[in-house]
């Protein structure tokens, strides 16, 4: 039977007025709010570093579009969970500790692998759900 719909192309990312140029606010390094590590903006594998590679904490500065710097919150964002894009890339989901807002960002090449694995294994720590799903539901 022929395919009814052609395989869907991945929708391109929306246009972002990237603010990393000289003299803009993202041209400087930043210091992590969680572990006070000085983080350089040159990240292997991504041009949009927004979290600390050591403790994965971020800061709530963007409103709707990544990079717009329009949020008044400035709260601390902790890594909440991991998701995987259809092409296999991991993304971290951050949640703001002061207003509860969620955001997603790609992992960078120098992110702490142990912290990432702890995030990825967090749903499997509780064995009740795994037991119910895999041993009794079938």
């Amino acid at each position, binding site marked *: 039977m022929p395919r009814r719909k052609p395989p869907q192309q991945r929708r391109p990312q*929306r246009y972002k007025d990237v603010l990393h140029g000289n003299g803009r606010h993202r041209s400087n390094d930043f210091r992590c709010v969680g572990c006070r590590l000085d983080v350089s903006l040159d990240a292997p594998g991504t041009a949009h570093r927004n979290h600390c590679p050591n403790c994965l904490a971020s800061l709530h500065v963007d409103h709707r579009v990544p990079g717009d710097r329009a949020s008044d919150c400035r709260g601390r964002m902790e890594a*909440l969970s991991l*998701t995987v894009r259809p092409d296999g890339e991991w993304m971290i989901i951050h*949640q703001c500790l002061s207003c509860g807002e*969620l955001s997603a960002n790609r992992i960078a090449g120098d992110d702490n692998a142990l912290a990432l694995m702890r995030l990825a294994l967090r749903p499997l720590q*509780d064995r009740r*759900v*795994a037991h*119910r799903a895999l041993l009794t539901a079938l």
Partner: protein
Amino acid sequence: MSSNNIDPQHTIARHVLGTEAFACVRCGLTVSALAPDGRRRNHCPSCLYSRHVLDQVEGGASECGSRMSPISIAVLRTGDWMLIHRCVRCDELTSNPVCGDDNQLILMRMAVRPLAEPPFPLEAFGTL
């Protein structure tokens, strides 16, 4: 939104009687709006898709109305699972608690999905 043309009295009556229902935007399943534990649900228990009707950034109703796909599982400190949805049209993220009758196999598949394609070799963790 679609609720504008429905008589509010009628909606309240259906809510009190517990017969309120919605159709899933993806699989078309007719789902009762109340979960077995009495809370209101916002996603289909079969395919876990939701609909973007609440604006999470500024609060209130959203004009988007397109479907939201489940992308990840978050675990609260209490051990409860939250389901994270992403709107396919405007990329907004929401989190909602998992209901008791949600499709357990889709939930487990999402939970172990990162381990299927790790970005670094997992053998290195054996020596730590």
